[in-house]
């Protein structure tokens, strides 16, 4: 039973991560990938730039995985990989992958993990626009916030 936690500037491969959680005992592999959208509230996004407090982010992600294993006992391997640096439109910023004996717990765990990651893990994204910044200027950028504080 592996916990895979990685914060990386490299391109993230869903396939690689899904293979890393594969197991002969697994009947199910559930994944979530976050990708950079090309727009945010009528502004055209050029890229996202991610920054992390890396050691705390890694520790925080590991704590989430430990908590998930306490909530769901059918999980085999769990991987959470997050991008730092520039993440242009269409590129993957985060992958969560879980293998489980059966589907229900894996699917639930993935959903819970991405929800918790978004409120607890010290990672920040800055949206860089190609037009119409937040104050009406051409271009521009803005640190985002997920919906709820810890």
């Amino acid at each position: 039973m592996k916990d895979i936690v990685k914060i990386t500037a490299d391109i993230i491969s869903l396939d690689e991560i899904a293979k890393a959680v594969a197991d002969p005992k697994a009947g199910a592999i559930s994944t979530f990938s976050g990708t950079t959208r090309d727009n945010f509230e009528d502004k055209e996004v050029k890229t996202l730039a991610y920054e992390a407090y890396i050691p705390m982010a890694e520790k925080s992600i590991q704590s989430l995985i430990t908590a998930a294993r306490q909530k769901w006992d059918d999980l085999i391997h769990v991987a959470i990989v997050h991008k730092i640096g520039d993440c242009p439109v269409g590129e993957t910023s985060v992958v969560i992958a879980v293998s489980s004996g059966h589907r229900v717990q894996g699917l639930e765990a993935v959903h819970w993990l991405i929800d918790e990651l978004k409120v607890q893990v010290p990672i920040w994204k800055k949206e860089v626009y190609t037009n119409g910044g937040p104050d009406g200027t051409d271009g521009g950028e803005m640190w985002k916030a997920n919906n709820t504080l810890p």
Partner: protein
Amino acid sequence: MTQHFKVLYFASAKDASKTDGDKFEWSDNINAEALTKLLLERHPDLAPILKISMFAVNMEYMDQDNSWTVQPGDEVAIIPPVSGG
């Protein structure tokens, strides 16, 4: 011997302070309120950021209303609202 603690700034806090970290001289009884004063003395532009940020000490989130105080050698991080995922 003078003792110190570190403060790390991220995201909008790093933009406002124009640095990713500072070293502060430690003294007794630096709680959340005193720490905020120290930070604002050095970086007045942090004011709006501190209003919406959490403190983390040695990679653990601190409650704003706790009676924790900074210890020598601590690493304090200013954590603006997160937006990972």
